[in-house]
């Protein structure tokens, strides 16, 4: 198909979905490139599964269009889409063995028996389940079931694989291991993955790009680094990692930096300039805890705020400080425990007066 070279591999254009009066997905537009792992990240009920089901063909969009490889998918039933889904519940057929489950989709391909058996064997080998081929789904563990579901969805060599919370049913240890396995299987097969997850760490580990969703809308699309370091809204900044936010007002621009008045600091700070912000505009200043320095003396640089250690939690490799400012506001800051030592070696202790400093580049100004 010539269209595949021209446009993006998957194009979602202004897609909305309503159930009655309730809008589960609102005006979502996205493009996904061939061979990437794309994550849909958002809290429970934000419409991730609904969006996935529209891609698989189980729901028709109320409005908007979906193009796969240049082909409009409107009206194409699920059984005719080169898209396969790994269901959140895995949806393995309980009355079929592992091998039969994996072979199921191949019934609809023009293949000889030998070819089909070979493909099943290859898939079972890919997910390391060859010894379990003859078992029924209830005779294997949760992690193995997950891999059967993956092998079944991959067996027909789909153009696009949709994974709905693929790791949610696994325990923490297995989840971490499986993340890397998923990535390696994706790399070996070259199939485009769209992974739905509510777990930001999972999204950051797995995905080449992430779309952050909230209340049916896509808030931001970008690489994990972009999403983390350059969030475009308070929602995204707060959803990914921890952050402390303050109300602020833009007072002007100096040396390519933005001057921002922060009432909670009782002072003016300098921040990285963002487009579309005008003088006098009310904004939010957000600071990630690991980007702050804590020192007994006033730090160099334009940004310094004095406060008192209200609370501290020792985690081993680092410590989390909660600093109360004269205005009453609280700031969180991380300090790496680089030096070995007992309590005396700490940067600061309870009730110590300390200075917080941060680079203008680390201060995030959010207009939204």
């Amino acid at each position: 198909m010539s269209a595949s070279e021209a446009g993006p591999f998957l194009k979602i254009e202004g897609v909305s979905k309503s159930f009655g009066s309730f809008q589960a997905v609102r005006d979502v537009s996205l493009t996904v490139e061939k061979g990437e792992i794309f994550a849909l990240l958002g809290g429970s009920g934000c419409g991730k599964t609904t969006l996935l089901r529209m891609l698989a063909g189980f729901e028709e969009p109320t409005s908007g269009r979906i193009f796969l490889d240049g082909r409009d998918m409107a009206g194409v039933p699920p059984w005719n889409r080169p898209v396969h889904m790994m269901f959140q519940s895995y949806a393995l057929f309980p009355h079929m063995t592992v091998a039969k489950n994996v072979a199921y989709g191949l019934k609809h391909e023009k293949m000889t028996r030998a070819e089909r058996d070979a493909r099943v064997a290859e898939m079972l080998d890919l997910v390391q389940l060859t010894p379990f081929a003859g078992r029924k789904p209830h005779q294997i563990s949760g992690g193995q079931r997950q891999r059967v579901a993956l092998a079944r969805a991959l067996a027909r060599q789909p153009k696009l694989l949709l994974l709905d919370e693929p790791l949610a049913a696994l325990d923490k240890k297995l989840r971490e291991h499986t993340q890397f396995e998923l990535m390696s299987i994706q790399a070996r097969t070259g199939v485009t993955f769209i992974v739905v997850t509510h777990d930001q760490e999972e999204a950051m580990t797995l995905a080449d790009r992430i779309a952050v969703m909230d209340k049916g809308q896509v808030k931001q699309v970008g690489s994990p680094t972009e999403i983390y370091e350059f969030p475009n809204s308070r929602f995204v900044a707060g959803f990914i990692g921890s952050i402390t936010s303050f109300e602020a007002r833009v007072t002007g621009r100096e040396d390519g930096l933005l001057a921002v008045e922060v009432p909670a600091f009782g002072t003016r700070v300098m921040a990285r300039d963002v487009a579309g912000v005008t003088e006098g505009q009310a904004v939010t200043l957000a600071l990630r805890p690991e980007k702050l320095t804590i020192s007994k003396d006033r730090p160099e640089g334009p940004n310094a705020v004095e406060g008192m250690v209200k609370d501290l939690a020792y985690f081993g490799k680092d410590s989390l400080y909660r600093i109360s400012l004269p205005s009453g506001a609280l700031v969180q800051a991380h300090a790496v425990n680089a030096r070995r030592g007992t309590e005396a070696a700490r940067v600061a202790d309870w009730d110590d007066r300390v200075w917080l400093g941060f680079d203008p580049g680390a201060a995030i100004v959010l207009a939204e």
Partner: protein
Amino acid sequence: MKRRPVFLITMLAFGFAFFYIPILSMIVYSFNESRLATVWGGFSTKWYVSLFSNRQVLAALVLSLKIAFISASIATILGTMAGIALARFRAFRGRVMFSGLVTAPLIMPEVITGISSLMFFIMLAEWIGWPAQRGFTTVTLAHITFSMVFVTTVVQARMIQADRAIEEAAMDLGSRPWQVLFDVTLPVIFPAILSGWLLAFTISLDDVVITSFTTGPGSTTLPLLIWSKVKLGVTPDINALATLMVLVVGAGVLIAGIVMNRAAARASADARLAYRANE
């Protein structure tokens, strides 16, 4: 991809027509003026009038209700005991035989149950002189026997579902096992016991075959009365009787169903609210 299951809905409509057209036809013809039960001869309520003045019908109805009430009550006690025994007592002597005895009446054809009860009562009278005459007592005994196993099935199923931990908690708090039974187990399974009783009552009230074998002169239940008339063909007064029975039972089941449906709807609404609150 939600498509209307047209074929299935058609089959449902066809099935319900099949279920209800005969009954509706019977109801309509109960208002038939004509003595020829199947030929329409104008509207009339005279068969209802003659029905209500028929002493025989009323006596049969009273006898049926009496037998059904007594047999259902005893069957519920015995059947509940058997259900508890099968669900809770893991191993006791003769358990295999006991569970066989409890399932066998479920698959025994009614003719065989009827004939065996009758032969048994006759031989018993030969050997020990009791029962001298068949009638109310023998019918009730037979009804208890074959309806108690239905109670057992219902109670046993409910017991297996019930949480054993609450019984253990009661024992932990110092109750003897039989006290636990009365304080905890029976109250918990009470709805099952109640539906077991209703089932036994209905089965007894509806039975023709076993009753016809075990009854004697002067003890004609309502189904037996209908049976003897129906064997001779379709008559308008039976149409009237049938209409009354169908309406009474139908109304009862409908009301019970609506009440339960409301309760179920409320429960699921509560669950949904709780779910929303947790989100």
